[in-house]
Protein backbone atom coordinates (compact mmCIF):
# COMPACT_ATOMS: atom_id res chain seq x y z
CA UNK A 1 0.00 0.00 0.00
CA UNK A 2 1.28 3.46 -0.83
CA UNK A 3 1.80 5.90 1.98
CA UNK A 4 1.78 9.62 1.48
CA UNK A 5 5.35 10.82 1.94
CA UNK A 6 6.05 14.45 2.77
CA UNK A 7 9.27 16.42 3.00
CA UNK A 8 8.95 19.12 5.62
CA UNK A 9 11.62 21.65 4.76
CA UNK A 10 12.91 24.81 6.38
CA UNK A 11 14.52 26.95 3.73
CA UNK A 12 16.31 30.15 4.60
CA UNK A 13 18.18 31.35 7.59
CA UNK A 14 15.63 31.76 10.35
CA UNK A 15 16.45 29.72 13.38
CA UNK A 16 13.06 28.48 14.56
CA UNK A 17 11.51 25.20 13.63
CA UNK A 18 8.79 24.88 16.22
CA UNK A 19 6.09 25.44 13.64
CA UNK A 20 7.66 22.97 11.23
CA UNK A 21 7.88 20.35 13.97
CA UNK A 22 4.24 20.82 14.96
CA UNK A 23 3.23 20.32 11.35
CA UNK A 24 5.54 17.29 11.02
CA UNK A 25 3.93 15.65 14.03
CA UNK A 26 0.41 16.41 12.83
CA UNK A 27 1.21 14.85 9.47
CA UNK A 28 2.68 11.78 11.13
CA UNK A 29 -0.43 11.44 13.29
CA UNK A 30 -2.48 11.57 10.10
CA UNK A 31 -0.56 8.49 8.92
CA UNK A 32 1.91 10.22 6.60
CA UNK A 33 5.62 9.49 6.42
CA UNK A 34 7.41 12.74 7.11
CA UNK A 35 11.02 13.35 6.20
CA UNK A 36 12.38 16.19 8.25
CA UNK A 37 15.73 17.66 7.32
CA UNK A 38 16.25 20.39 9.92
CA UNK A 39 16.98 24.07 9.71
CA UNK A 40 18.62 26.30 7.11
CA UNK A 41 18.23 24.26 3.96
CA UNK A 42 19.12 25.72 0.61
CA UNK A 43 16.62 25.25 -2.24
CA UNK A 44 19.20 22.95 -3.87
CA UNK A 45 19.33 20.73 -0.77
CA UNK A 46 15.55 20.65 -0.49
CA UNK A 47 15.10 19.62 -4.12
CA UNK A 48 17.83 16.97 -3.90
CA UNK A 49 16.34 15.50 -0.73
CA UNK A 50 12.83 15.55 -2.23
CA UNK A 51 14.04 13.60 -5.25
CA UNK A 52 16.09 11.03 -3.29
CA UNK A 53 13.19 10.42 -0.95
CA UNK A 54 10.72 10.47 -3.87
CA UNK A 55 8.20 12.38 -1.78
CA UNK A 56 4.67 13.16 -2.89
CA UNK A 57 4.60 16.52 -1.12
CA UNK A 58 7.14 19.23 -0.33
CA UNK A 59 5.96 21.39 2.56
CA UNK A 60 8.08 24.47 3.19
CA UNK A 61 7.93 26.61 6.27
CA UNK A 62 9.50 30.02 6.49
CA UNK A 63 9.42 32.86 8.97
CA UNK A 64 12.15 35.12 7.70
CA UNK A 65 10.33 36.88 4.89
CA UNK A 66 12.51 35.40 2.18
CA UNK A 67 9.58 33.45 0.68
CA UNK A 68 9.21 35.55 -2.51
CA UNK A 69 12.61 34.30 -3.56
CA UNK A 70 12.99 30.91 -1.84
CA UNK A 71 9.60 29.29 -2.49
CA UNK A 72 9.72 29.76 -6.28
CA UNK A 73 13.37 28.65 -6.28
CA UNK A 74 12.36 25.36 -4.62
CA UNK A 75 9.48 24.85 -7.08
CA UNK A 76 11.79 25.36 -10.03
CA UNK A 77 14.50 23.00 -8.76
CA UNK A 78 12.02 20.29 -7.72
CA UNK A 79 10.44 20.35 -11.21
CA UNK A 80 13.90 20.22 -12.79
CA UNK A 81 14.52 16.96 -10.94
CA UNK A 82 11.67 15.48 -12.95
CA UNK A 83 9.16 15.57 -10.10
CA UNK A 84 6.30 16.97 -12.11
CA UNK A 85 3.53 15.61 -9.88
CA UNK A 86 4.90 16.55 -6.46
CA UNK A 87 2.55 18.82 -4.55
CA UNK A 88 4.40 21.88 -3.23
CA UNK A 89 2.93 23.89 -0.38
CA UNK A 90 4.23 26.63 1.86
CA UNK A 91 3.52 28.11 5.22
CA UNK A 92 4.73 30.73 7.65
CA UNK A 93 4.47 34.44 8.12
CA UNK A 94 3.41 35.41 4.64
CA UNK A 95 1.48 38.59 3.84
CA UNK A 96 -1.78 37.97 1.94
CA UNK A 97 -0.54 40.23 -0.81
CA UNK A 98 2.36 37.89 -1.59
CA UNK A 99 0.22 34.80 -2.00
CA UNK A 100 -0.97 35.26 -5.61
CA UNK A 101 2.60 35.59 -6.86
CA UNK A 102 3.65 32.45 -4.99
CA UNK A 103 0.74 30.51 -6.50
CA UNK A 104 1.65 31.87 -9.89
CA UNK A 105 5.15 30.46 -9.31
CA UNK A 106 3.74 27.00 -8.67
CA UNK A 107 3.19 26.85 -4.92
CA UNK A 108 -0.16 25.06 -4.75
CA UNK A 109 -1.33 26.48 -1.45
CA UNK A 110 -0.04 28.80 1.23
CA UNK A 111 -0.94 28.37 4.90
CA UNK A 112 -0.60 31.36 7.17
CA UNK A 113 -0.09 31.22 10.96
CA UNK A 114 -3.10 29.97 12.86
CA UNK A 115 -4.19 27.52 10.19
CA UNK A 116 -5.34 24.38 12.02
CA UNK A 117 -2.99 21.51 11.17
CA UNK A 118 -6.06 19.47 10.28
CA UNK A 119 -6.67 21.79 7.34
CA UNK A 120 -3.19 21.07 6.01
CA UNK A 121 -3.79 17.33 6.36
CA UNK A 122 -7.09 17.60 4.50
CA UNK A 123 -5.56 19.75 1.79
CA UNK A 124 -2.80 17.22 1.18
CA UNK A 125 -5.21 14.29 1.11
CA UNK A 126 -7.41 16.08 -1.39
CA UNK A 127 -4.67 17.25 -3.73
CA UNK A 128 -1.83 14.73 -3.59
CA UNK A 129 -1.24 12.70 -6.74
CA UNK A 130 -0.69 9.05 -5.92
Amino acid at each position, binding site marked *: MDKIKVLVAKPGLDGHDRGAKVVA*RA*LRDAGFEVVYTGLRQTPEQIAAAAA*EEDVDVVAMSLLSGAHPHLFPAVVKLVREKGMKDALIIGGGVIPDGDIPALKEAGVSEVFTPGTPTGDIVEYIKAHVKK
Partner: protein
Amino acid sequence: MENIAEEVLMGNRYALAKAITAIENERENAMEIMQKLYPHTGHAYVLGITGPPGAGKSTLTDKLAKEYRRQGKTVGIIAIDPSSPFSGGAILGDRIRMNDLTLDDGVFMRSMGTRGSLGGLSHKTADAVKVMDAFGMDVIFVETVGVGQSEVDIVKAADTTMVVLIPGMGDDIQAIKAGILEIGDIFTINKADHDGADKLATELNMMLDLDGVMKEWRPPIMKTIANQNIGIAEVVETFGKHHNHIDGNGQLTVRRTERTKNEMLDLLDSRIGEHIRRNVVENGKIDKLVEEIKARRTDPYTEAAKIVSEMLK
Protein backbone atom coordinates in the same frame (compact mmCIF):
# COMPACT_ATOMS: atom_id res chain seq x y z
CA MET B 1 8.79 6.83 -15.43
CA GLU B 2 9.15 3.81 -17.68
CA ASN B 3 12.24 1.60 -17.87
CA ILE B 4 13.14 2.33 -14.28
CA ALA B 5 15.69 -0.50 -14.11
CA GLU B 6 17.44 0.61 -17.31
CA GLU B 7 17.59 4.18 -16.04
CA VAL B 8 19.06 3.00 -12.72
CA LEU B 9 21.79 1.18 -14.61
CA MET B 10 22.51 4.31 -16.61
CA GLY B 11 23.07 6.25 -13.40
CA ASN B 12 19.76 8.15 -13.16
CA ARG B 13 19.39 9.09 -9.48
CA TYR B 14 15.69 9.82 -9.71
CA ALA B 15 15.15 6.36 -11.20
CA LEU B 16 17.01 4.93 -8.21
CA ALA B 17 14.58 6.78 -5.95
CA LYS B 18 11.60 5.49 -7.98
CA ALA B 19 12.89 1.92 -7.81
CA ILE B 20 13.05 2.07 -4.01
CA THR B 21 9.55 3.55 -3.90
CA ALA B 22 8.27 0.64 -6.00
CA ILE B 23 9.85 -1.82 -3.57
CA GLU B 24 8.61 0.00 -0.49
CA ASN B 25 5.04 0.16 -1.72
CA GLU B 26 5.09 -3.35 -3.19
CA ARG B 27 4.06 -1.95 -6.55
CA GLU B 28 3.45 -4.32 -9.42
CA ASN B 29 6.59 -3.27 -11.29
CA ALA B 30 8.88 -4.01 -8.33
CA MET B 31 9.47 -7.61 -9.36
CA GLU B 32 10.42 -6.70 -12.90
CA ILE B 33 12.80 -4.01 -11.63
CA MET B 34 14.50 -6.48 -9.30
CA GLN B 35 14.74 -9.13 -12.02
CA LYS B 36 16.53 -6.69 -14.29
CA LEU B 37 18.84 -5.30 -11.61
CA TYR B 38 19.78 -8.56 -9.93
CA PRO B 39 22.52 -9.54 -12.40
CA HIS B 40 24.23 -6.24 -11.60
CA THR B 41 24.37 -6.75 -7.84
CA GLY B 42 26.97 -8.33 -5.60
CA HIS B 43 29.64 -5.65 -5.80
CA ALA B 44 28.83 -3.36 -2.87
CA TYR B 45 30.07 -3.84 0.66
CA VAL B 46 27.16 -3.54 3.08
CA LEU B 47 27.60 -2.09 6.56
CA GLY B 48 24.94 -2.35 9.28
CA ILE B 49 24.82 0.38 11.93
CA THR B 50 22.53 -0.32 14.85
CA GLY B 51 22.07 0.73 18.46
CA PRO B 52 19.66 2.45 20.84
CA PRO B 53 17.72 5.61 19.97
CA GLY B 54 19.85 8.75 19.95
CA ALA B 55 23.18 6.93 20.28
CA GLY B 56 24.60 8.90 17.36
CA LYS B 57 24.11 6.37 14.57
CA SER B 58 23.20 8.97 11.93
CA THR B 59 25.98 11.33 12.99
CA LEU B 60 28.43 8.43 12.75
CA THR B 61 27.08 7.35 9.39
CA ASP B 62 27.47 10.91 8.09
CA LYS B 63 31.10 11.07 9.19
CA LEU B 64 31.91 7.54 8.05
CA ALA B 65 30.37 8.28 4.64
CA LYS B 66 32.57 11.36 4.31
CA GLU B 67 35.64 9.27 5.15
CA TYR B 68 34.74 6.77 2.41
CA ARG B 69 34.18 9.67 0.01
CA ARG B 70 37.68 10.95 0.80
CA GLN B 71 38.91 7.52 -0.27
CA GLY B 72 37.06 7.90 -3.55
CA LYS B 73 34.28 5.43 -2.78
CA THR B 74 30.61 6.03 -3.57
CA VAL B 75 28.15 5.58 -0.72
CA GLY B 76 24.51 4.53 -0.37
CA ILE B 77 22.64 5.04 2.90
CA ILE B 78 19.35 3.52 4.02
CA ALA B 79 18.13 4.84 7.36
CA ILE B 80 15.17 3.13 8.97
CA ASP B 81 13.03 4.76 11.65
CA PRO B 82 10.09 3.27 13.55
CA SER B 83 6.58 3.96 12.27
CA SER B 84 3.92 4.89 14.80
CA PRO B 85 1.89 1.81 15.71
CA PHE B 86 -1.15 4.06 16.12
CA SER B 87 -1.29 6.13 12.95
CA GLY B 88 1.10 4.16 10.76
CA GLY B 89 2.87 7.46 10.08
CA ALA B 90 6.49 8.20 10.88
CA ILE B 91 8.90 11.04 11.33
CA LEU B 92 12.05 10.17 9.45
CA GLY B 93 14.68 12.45 10.95
CA ASP B 94 18.00 10.88 10.08
CA ARG B 95 18.73 13.32 7.28
CA ILE B 96 19.09 16.10 9.86
CA ARG B 97 22.58 14.72 10.60
CA MET B 98 23.45 14.12 6.97
CA ASN B 99 22.61 17.37 5.22
CA ASP B 100 26.18 17.87 4.02
CA LEU B 101 25.87 14.70 1.95
CA THR B 102 22.73 15.78 0.10
CA LEU B 103 24.50 17.65 -2.69
CA ASP B 104 27.25 15.06 -3.16
CA ASP B 105 26.56 13.05 -6.31
CA GLY B 106 28.60 10.19 -4.93
CA VAL B 107 26.12 9.66 -2.09
CA PHE B 108 22.50 8.53 -2.16
CA MET B 109 20.51 8.62 1.06
CA ARG B 110 17.05 7.20 1.61
CA SER B 111 14.84 7.11 4.72
CA MET B 112 12.35 4.32 5.36
CA GLY B 113 9.67 3.75 8.00
CA THR B 114 9.24 0.32 9.57
CA ARG B 115 5.51 0.30 8.64
CA GLY B 116 4.45 -2.40 11.05
CA SER B 117 5.41 -5.55 9.21
CA LEU B 118 8.96 -6.30 10.20
CA GLY B 119 9.29 -9.43 8.12
CA GLY B 120 8.32 -7.37 5.10
CA LEU B 121 10.74 -4.67 6.09
CA SER B 122 13.80 -6.88 6.09
CA HIS B 123 13.23 -8.06 2.54
CA LYS B 124 12.38 -4.54 1.37
CA THR B 125 15.59 -3.29 2.96
CA ALA B 126 17.56 -6.06 1.27
CA ASP B 127 16.02 -5.12 -2.09
CA ALA B 128 16.74 -1.41 -1.56
CA VAL B 129 20.35 -2.38 -0.86
CA LYS B 130 20.43 -4.33 -4.12
CA VAL B 131 19.10 -1.38 -6.10
CA MET B 132 21.85 0.86 -4.70
CA ASP B 133 24.36 -1.90 -5.40
CA ALA B 134 23.26 -2.20 -9.02
CA PHE B 135 23.39 1.60 -9.31
CA GLY B 136 27.07 1.25 -8.49
CA MET B 137 27.46 2.31 -4.87
CA ASP B 138 30.68 0.86 -3.41
CA VAL B 139 29.65 0.99 0.22
CA ILE B 140 26.07 0.83 1.53
CA PHE B 141 25.07 1.70 5.08
CA VAL B 142 21.91 0.41 6.71
CA GLU B 143 20.98 2.29 9.89
CA THR B 144 18.40 0.75 12.22
CA VAL B 145 17.29 1.58 15.75
CA GLY B 146 17.57 -0.87 18.61
CA VAL B 147 18.73 -4.41 18.78
CA GLY B 148 15.58 -6.48 18.83
CA GLN B 149 14.83 -9.45 16.63
CA SER B 150 13.66 -7.26 13.77
CA GLU B 151 16.96 -5.41 13.64
CA VAL B 152 18.81 -8.68 13.72
CA ASP B 153 16.88 -9.68 10.61
CA ILE B 154 17.59 -6.39 8.90
CA VAL B 155 21.30 -6.39 9.61
CA LYS B 156 21.50 -9.84 8.07
CA ALA B 157 21.63 -7.87 4.85
CA ALA B 158 24.97 -6.47 6.08
CA ASP B 159 28.44 -7.93 5.58
CA THR B 160 29.77 -6.17 8.66
CA THR B 161 27.64 -4.84 11.50
CA MET B 162 28.62 -2.20 14.01
CA VAL B 163 26.69 -1.81 17.24
CA VAL B 164 26.73 1.72 18.64
CA LEU B 165 26.50 2.08 22.41
CA ILE B 166 26.77 5.10 24.68
CA PRO B 167 28.07 5.62 28.22
CA GLY B 168 25.53 5.66 31.00
CA MET B 169 23.35 2.93 29.57
CA GLY B 170 23.82 1.13 32.88
CA ASP B 171 21.61 -1.89 33.23
CA ASP B 172 20.30 -1.54 29.73
CA ILE B 173 23.36 -3.27 28.49
CA GLN B 174 22.44 -6.34 30.49
CA ALA B 175 19.00 -6.36 28.96
CA ILE B 176 20.22 -6.17 25.40
CA LYS B 177 23.42 -8.12 25.69
CA ALA B 178 22.12 -11.31 24.13
CA GLY B 179 21.17 -9.43 21.02
CA ILE B 180 24.23 -7.24 20.75
CA LEU B 181 26.82 -9.90 21.39
CA GLU B 182 25.39 -11.88 18.51
CA ILE B 183 25.20 -9.24 15.87
CA GLY B 184 28.13 -6.93 16.59
CA ASP B 185 31.21 -7.56 14.47
CA ILE B 186 32.45 -4.24 15.80
CA PHE B 187 31.31 -2.18 18.76
CA THR B 188 31.76 1.50 19.22
CA ILE B 189 31.19 3.47 22.34
CA ASN B 190 30.02 6.76 20.90
CA LYS B 191 29.71 9.96 22.90
CA ALA B 192 33.03 9.01 24.45
CA ASP B 193 33.17 12.65 25.58
CA HIS B 194 30.61 11.67 28.23
CA ASP B 195 31.52 10.07 31.57
CA GLY B 196 31.50 6.31 31.77
CA ALA B 197 32.96 5.35 28.40
CA ASP B 198 35.81 3.40 30.01
CA LYS B 199 33.48 1.67 32.42
CA LEU B 200 31.22 0.60 29.58
CA ALA B 201 34.22 -0.63 27.59
CA THR B 202 35.32 -2.73 30.56
CA GLU B 203 31.85 -4.23 30.99
CA LEU B 204 31.56 -4.96 27.33
CA ASN B 205 35.00 -6.55 27.22
CA MET B 206 34.03 -8.77 30.13
CA MET B 207 30.85 -9.87 28.46
CA LEU B 208 32.63 -10.65 25.22
CA ASP B 209 35.28 -12.66 27.09
CA LEU B 210 32.69 -14.50 29.16
CA ASP B 211 31.48 -15.86 25.90
CA GLY B 212 34.33 -18.33 26.46
CA VAL B 213 34.93 -19.84 23.09
CA MET B 214 38.02 -18.55 21.36
CA LYS B 215 36.77 -16.82 18.29
CA GLU B 216 38.67 -16.17 15.11
CA TRP B 217 37.40 -12.61 15.22
CA ARG B 218 37.12 -10.94 18.58
CA PRO B 219 34.84 -7.92 18.06
CA PRO B 220 36.95 -4.85 18.74
CA ILE B 221 35.56 -2.11 20.96
CA MET B 222 36.14 1.33 19.51
CA LYS B 223 35.54 4.76 20.99
CA THR B 224 34.12 7.61 18.95
CA ILE B 225 32.94 11.18 19.36
CA ALA B 226 30.96 11.35 16.18
CA ASN B 227 29.94 14.99 16.26
CA GLN B 228 33.61 15.97 16.60
CA ASN B 229 34.77 13.52 13.95
CA ILE B 230 36.94 11.71 16.49
CA GLY B 231 37.70 8.03 15.97
CA ILE B 232 36.05 7.94 12.54
CA ALA B 233 39.08 7.02 10.43
CA GLU B 234 39.85 4.23 12.93
CA VAL B 235 36.33 2.80 12.51
CA VAL B 236 36.68 2.82 8.73
CA GLU B 237 40.03 1.06 9.09
CA THR B 238 38.42 -1.53 11.35
CA PHE B 239 35.61 -2.10 8.85
CA GLY B 240 38.36 -2.81 6.33
CA LYS B 241 40.05 -5.23 8.69
CA HIS B 242 36.84 -7.11 9.30
CA HIS B 243 36.13 -7.21 5.59
CA ASN B 244 39.60 -8.63 4.91
CA HIS B 245 39.22 -11.10 7.73
CA ILE B 246 35.93 -12.57 6.55
CA ASP B 247 37.08 -12.43 2.96
CA GLY B 248 40.27 -14.31 3.83
CA ASN B 249 38.71 -17.10 5.86
CA GLY B 250 35.79 -17.70 3.55
CA GLN B 251 33.26 -16.37 6.03
CA LEU B 252 32.07 -13.68 3.63
CA THR B 253 31.18 -16.29 1.04
CA VAL B 254 29.44 -18.34 3.71
CA ARG B 255 27.43 -15.31 4.87
CA ARG B 256 26.45 -14.36 1.35
CA THR B 257 25.49 -17.91 0.44
CA GLU B 258 23.38 -18.13 3.57
CA ARG B 259 21.76 -14.80 2.74
CA THR B 260 20.96 -15.82 -0.83
CA LYS B 261 19.42 -19.03 0.42
CA ASN B 262 17.34 -17.24 3.03
CA GLU B 263 16.17 -14.70 0.50
CA MET B 264 15.12 -17.47 -1.83
CA LEU B 265 13.22 -19.21 0.97
CA ASP B 266 11.57 -15.96 2.10
CA LEU B 267 10.50 -15.25 -1.44
CA LEU B 268 9.01 -18.72 -1.78
CA ASP B 269 7.21 -18.25 1.51
CA SER B 270 5.72 -14.98 0.44
CA ARG B 271 4.73 -16.23 -3.03
CA ILE B 272 3.02 -19.25 -1.50
CA GLY B 273 1.38 -17.00 1.06
CA GLU B 274 0.10 -14.78 -1.75
CA HIS B 275 -1.27 -17.78 -3.58
CA ILE B 276 -3.14 -18.87 -0.48
CA ARG B 277 -4.47 -15.38 0.19
CA ARG B 278 -5.79 -15.19 -3.35
CA ASN B 279 -7.20 -18.69 -3.71
CA VAL B 280 -8.27 -19.49 -0.18
CA VAL B 281 -8.82 -16.30 1.76
CA GLU B 282 -10.03 -13.64 -0.64
CA ASN B 283 -12.54 -15.87 -2.41
CA GLY B 284 -14.14 -16.80 0.91
CA LYS B 285 -13.16 -20.47 0.71
CA ILE B 286 -11.58 -20.25 4.13
CA ASP B 287 -14.83 -19.10 5.77
CA LYS B 288 -16.76 -22.05 4.40
CA LEU B 289 -14.02 -24.39 5.59
CA VAL B 290 -14.01 -22.84 9.03
CA GLU B 291 -17.73 -23.55 9.34
CA GLU B 292 -17.19 -27.18 8.32
CA ILE B 293 -14.30 -27.49 10.76
CA LYS B 294 -16.26 -25.90 13.61
CA ALA B 295 -19.08 -28.38 13.02
CA ARG B 296 -16.45 -31.13 13.25
CA ARG B 297 -17.39 -32.43 9.83
CA THR B 298 -13.73 -32.15 8.92
CA ASP B 299 -10.53 -30.98 10.62
CA PRO B 300 -7.92 -28.28 9.91
CA TYR B 301 -5.16 -30.84 9.35
CA THR B 302 -6.95 -32.62 6.56
CA GLU B 303 -8.06 -29.38 4.93
CA ALA B 304 -4.61 -27.79 5.05
CA ALA B 305 -3.08 -30.88 3.48
CA LYS B 306 -5.77 -30.84 0.77
CA ILE B 307 -5.16 -27.19 -0.05
CA VAL B 308 -1.45 -27.74 -0.34
CA SER B 309 -1.71 -30.82 -2.52
CA GLU B 310 -4.25 -28.97 -4.67
CA MET B 311 -1.80 -26.12 -5.02
CA LEU B 312 1.08 -28.35 -6.00
CA LYS B 313 -0.83 -30.08 -8.78
